[in-house]
């Protein structure tokens, strides 16, 4: 088994509700155990995140990527083909530079590192958000002019 596969397993177990894991494949054996068998209900993010605007909250609860998303502008998960670009600041999301102009990107578009993909307006300042790597836009997750909090997943993308 390759290291990347094992890491993937750790992450899967980590975000799962399982307590431990043991694998034996011919010569190969793998055993994983979680700390503190007793799960403190308070530590469950979705429970505490509940006060957040429902729509988003549901998204977060189901989607591990959303949790990881906060750590930077782009979040990685085990699944290479499954990445998000999240909001680096709190503000209003705009797909277009101005009301009458076309959107920066559409689903399916390929964008290259440094290209502007949307605008986030905060305190009447228009902040252009640039792609940090070449990628294809798989899904646009928020509506034009939607208010977004820090870490909100904006685009599901595929690295190129």
């Amino acid at each position: 088994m390759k290291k990347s596969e094992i890491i993937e397993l750790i992450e899967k177990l980590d975000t799962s509700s399982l307590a431990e894991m043991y694998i034996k494949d011919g010569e190969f054996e793998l055993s994983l155990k979680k700390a503190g068998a007793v799960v403190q209900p308070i530590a469950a993010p979705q429970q505490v995140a509940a006060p957040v605007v429902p729509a988003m909250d549901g998204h977060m609860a189901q989607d591990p990527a959303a949790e990881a998303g906060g750590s930077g502008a782009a979040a990685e998960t085990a699944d290479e083909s499954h990445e998000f670009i999240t909001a680096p600041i709190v503000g209003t999301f705009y797909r277009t530079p101005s009301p009458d102009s076309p959107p920066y990107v559409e689903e399916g578009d390929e964008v290259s590192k440094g290209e502007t993909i949307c605008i986030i307006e905060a305190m009447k300042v228009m902040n252009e958000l640039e792609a940090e790597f070449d990628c294809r836009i798989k899904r646009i997750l928020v509506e034009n002019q939607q208010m977004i909090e820090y870490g909100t997943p904006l685009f599901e993308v595929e690295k190129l």
Partner: protein
Amino acid sequence: MVKSVFIANRGEIAVRIVRTLKEMGIEAVVGYSEADRVSLAVELADKAVCIGPAEAKKSYLHSANLISGALYADCDAIHPGVGFLSESAQFAQQVQDAGLVFIGPDAETISFLGDKVQARQTALDAGLPVTPGSDGPVTDLETAVAFAEKAGYPVIIKAASGGGGKGMRIVREESELESAMRIATHEAETSFSDGTIYIEKYLENPRHIEVQILADTFGNVIHLGERDCSLQKNHQKVLEESPSPGIDPDIRERMCSDAVNLFKKIGYKGAGTIEFLFDGEDYYFMEVNARVQVEHPVSEYISNVDIIKEQIRGCSGEPMDITQEDVKLEGASIECRINAATPGKITRYLQPGGRNVRVDSFLYQGYTVSPHYDSLVSKLITYGRDRRSAIARMKRALDEYVIEGIDTNIEVQKKILNSTLFQRGIFGTFGLSRILEE
């Protein structure tokens, strides 16, 4: 009246504000950093908005994210709490510009009070006693020497835009004066990019006394008596109490009316504190804290007034619920600040309870204390008919308090409570180090 308040803060003060908002029937929205996603304030709030990563500079100190967060949640006011941006005139201005109510004094008032020289002058004009000082910037040695001889050594050199001991120098004889001025000026320049310094008479081991003031926009200004905050460790308050065991009724009366006069003069609104130094005979104006303070609960106990509630009313254009006549100061109250010496997970938590014991904290069993922020994790406050019973109750409560998984200063607090110096009530700002040396 405001309908929904955004709390731009965290920890115990965020929990404290949520509680009063709920009792007032106002929606409580907490802005939280990713490090505080799982926290008591977030859980108790009606709504919560993530306003940035753990690093305070990008969350609790990030004006744009905080204000956008308030707009995001349709709030009509922002409460800055204590610390972070609570005394930033710029933030207060931005909040007002965004069309939101800032729960604190006006931006102008904050910036005005931020300048120590200006504030001191205003206090003088309002007839408050101030420590003999240069009354304005000092640039040349001659002026300094002349003043020092008039006031008598020791004197202290301070930075006009200073704080936290930076740019301060105590001078005990003329020979030290010149070099001290040079160093202080340099420190002031590098720290606050403003080399302006001034000189004051330096008091040895004075009491640190502050008066709690509440004001609204209808010209009502009332006081809730004084607090004794003399017990400090490197300028950090450790234990506070009200009333002060060293202030007699006559001094108290003069201090409090002086404080009220000053706030009337500057058109203050909301909750604020005026700090005095007391040398046993006379008191001297030090500075104004243009916000609610960590130690406000001791004043709430002896006055039975909800300071946060009156602050919110006063800052949102409502008349306060109470007049000076309604305020009867009774009994004695003590607050012990419980600080975490280490971050970590709380493996066991037993909170003191029972009569006349109040706990303002965000801890619970299973919570992980984050290394990113202030070390204050709980405030334990007791009340009694007199100081002796408040002390007996605090000892009982400290014995009851179990916090396992992190190191705290509970043992230090027990030592203070058990020291004769504290029990006799005879101490100044040097008191704590003497108690701990015992």
